């Protein structure tokens, strides 16, 4: 027997695939809600609080409360206990907590082209195209943050993270279900003594992590045959003290035979926290009436961990600028209605802190001069290399950080 996990983008028709999968195989479906409920029972923390770990925004108080780490530790424990059952389909974020050493778990990723997803979102929610794009971008950000936190990968749809990545816009539901079932039934993915041992190790590591988190410690925990390895991933001067404290706590957990400690890369990184702040994805607004171009651009930026909103004309660009102040605006000059130059003029007059990057296919040298005089941050010509654009955005972001710091 085996377990299947499904991690997917929103509006990828995942629900239908899961339904087919469950009815084809008689497997039991477990969702994030089920796992959260179990974690809530184990921990006594409210489910609504635990759920927050799936959102990329940590509470500003987390530094002191460690609520997020506590919740994740209990989610791992709940997941380890869940794996004592077999024949499951686990959908959502929590399936990603399972270590890849447990080989009777088949990790499936379902994803589709952005265009397909936007169309489905428009139909399902009866919203405008730009609203749908914005919604999906936000949901995508949450998935990217989760994968980044667990596996350190920037792209949540990286094929290396999964046993199979399936495009839901290119195959029909039954074919998808059949492909998954075929792989899940293969001998490679079957429960074995070795994989059950890996489940025991997962459980032991989760129990140790819960104990450590209770005492206020945050370290990486893994286990192999009862030997627990703790990874300290931030700089600590009194390392020996910390190591002996951690060992004392961990070795009290029943089943732990030996505890080893080591330092991870974060221990040596001098200014890891500051670095994170600098790389914070800024709020970017893309303004261009060429829909195809601007959607592709948005997708590419997302792959570089920069979430962006889209406006297709000058009026809506000004509206977004007023209501949801972006950090950076990437602006085309030639648009029907209020053109780019006018948008630039008005934005710089009322919200000079917004950095505007002009990206145009039609501009002349004179246009460039005018734009720079009006306060544009940079002037780029189409077609633009995404690397060049993201480097420019980064520079704009650094300027914003500097001016915020000096305020």
């Amino acid at each position: 027997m085996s377990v299947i996990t499904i991690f997917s983008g929103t509006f990828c028709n995942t629900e239908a695939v899961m339904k087919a999968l469950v009815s084809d195989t008689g497997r039991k479906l477990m969702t994030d809600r089920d796992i959260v409920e179990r974690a809530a029972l184990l921990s006594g923390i409210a489910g609504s609080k635990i759920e927050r770990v799936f959102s990329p925004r940590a509470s500003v108080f987390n530094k002191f409360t460690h609520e997020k780490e506590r919740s994740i530790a209990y989610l791992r424990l709940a997941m380890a206990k869940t794996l004592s059952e077999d024949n499951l389909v686990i959908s959502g974020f929590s399936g990603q907590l399972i270590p890849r050493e447990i080989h009777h778990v088949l990790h499936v990723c379902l994803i589709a082209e952005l265009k397909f997803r936007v169309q489905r979102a428009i139909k399902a929610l009866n919203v405008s195209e730009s609203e749908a794009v914005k919604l999906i971008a936000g949901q995508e950000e949450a998935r990217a943050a989760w994968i980044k936190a667990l596996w350190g990968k920037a792209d949540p749809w990286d094929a290396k993270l999964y046993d199979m990545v399936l495009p839901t816009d290119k195959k029909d539901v039954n074919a998808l279900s059949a492909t998954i079932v075929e792989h899940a039934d293969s001998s490679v993915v079957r429960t074995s003594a070795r994989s059950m041992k890996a489940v025991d190790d997962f459980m032991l590591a989760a129990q140790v992590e819960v104990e450590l988190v209770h005492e206020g410690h945050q370290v990486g925990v893994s286990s192999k045959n009862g030997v627990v390895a703790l990874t300290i991933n931030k700089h600590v001067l009194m390392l020996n003290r910390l190591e002996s404290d951690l060992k004392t706590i961990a070795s009290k957990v029943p089943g732990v035979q030996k505890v080893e400690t080591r330092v991870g890369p974060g221990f040596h990184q001098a200014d890891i926290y500051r670095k994170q702040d600098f790389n914070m994805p800024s709020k970017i607004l893309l303004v261009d009436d060429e829909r195809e171009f601007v959607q592709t651009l948005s997708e590419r930026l997302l792959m570089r961990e920069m979430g962006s909103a889209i406006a297709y004309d000058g009026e809506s660009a000004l509206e977004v600028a007023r209501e949801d102040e972006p950090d950076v605006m990437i602006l085309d000059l030639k648009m029907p209605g209020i053109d780019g130059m006018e948008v630039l003029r008005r934005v710089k007059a009322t919200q000079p802190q917004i950095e505007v990057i002009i990206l145009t296919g039609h501009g002349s040298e004179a246009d460039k001069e005018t734009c720079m005089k009006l306060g544009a941050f940079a002037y780029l010509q189409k077609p633009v290399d995404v690397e060049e654009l993201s480097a420019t955005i980064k520079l704009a972001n650094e300027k914003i950080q500097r001016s915020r710091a000096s305020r």
Partner: protein
Amino acid sequence: MTRKNNILLAATHLLAVKGFKETSMAELAKVAGVAQGTIFYHYKNKEELFLAILRSFQEDIVAEFSRHRQTQQFDCGLQMVADVIDFYLHMASQMEERFMLLHRHDAHELARSNADFHACLEAIYDCLIDIFEQAILLGQKDGSIGDCSPRRMAMIIFTMVDGLVRFHTYNLYDVGGLYEDVVRACEAMLKKNIP
């Protein structure tokens, strides 16, 4: 007083007052009254000189504490805690410049990239905290101190007492007014609760 000692004293003063980055070897030579070449004869560079100061600091702390223990008698561990708080504050005023040096950011920053600094600084903090830990362990043995983690409690008391030293160094407040309260607060934290 040897030349080497002179250099160490002058360096301690400059590093404590001006900081690691702002202190130049030329200035140091002037204050110590030796030629720059003499300093380089004893110490390869500024880092090594700084390390030598920290190492002798640690040795002196250990020596001071063992001397103190030999002359003092305690009825119980809880009393020893009050005594070591007193001892710590006394030591901090005796070695004022070196404590000031310890309270600066410099050594901690160097410890992040330099293994020797890390080991040295860790050893200093270890022996400072050990002073409190020994008292707590003694108190748990004789029953005057209740059930707690001696390591953690030692660190908490250390932060309180060392905080007093910082208060004094930077003239934040008249520390004399806080001393009694800190001692009483520590006793209250540690005392065995008799039901």
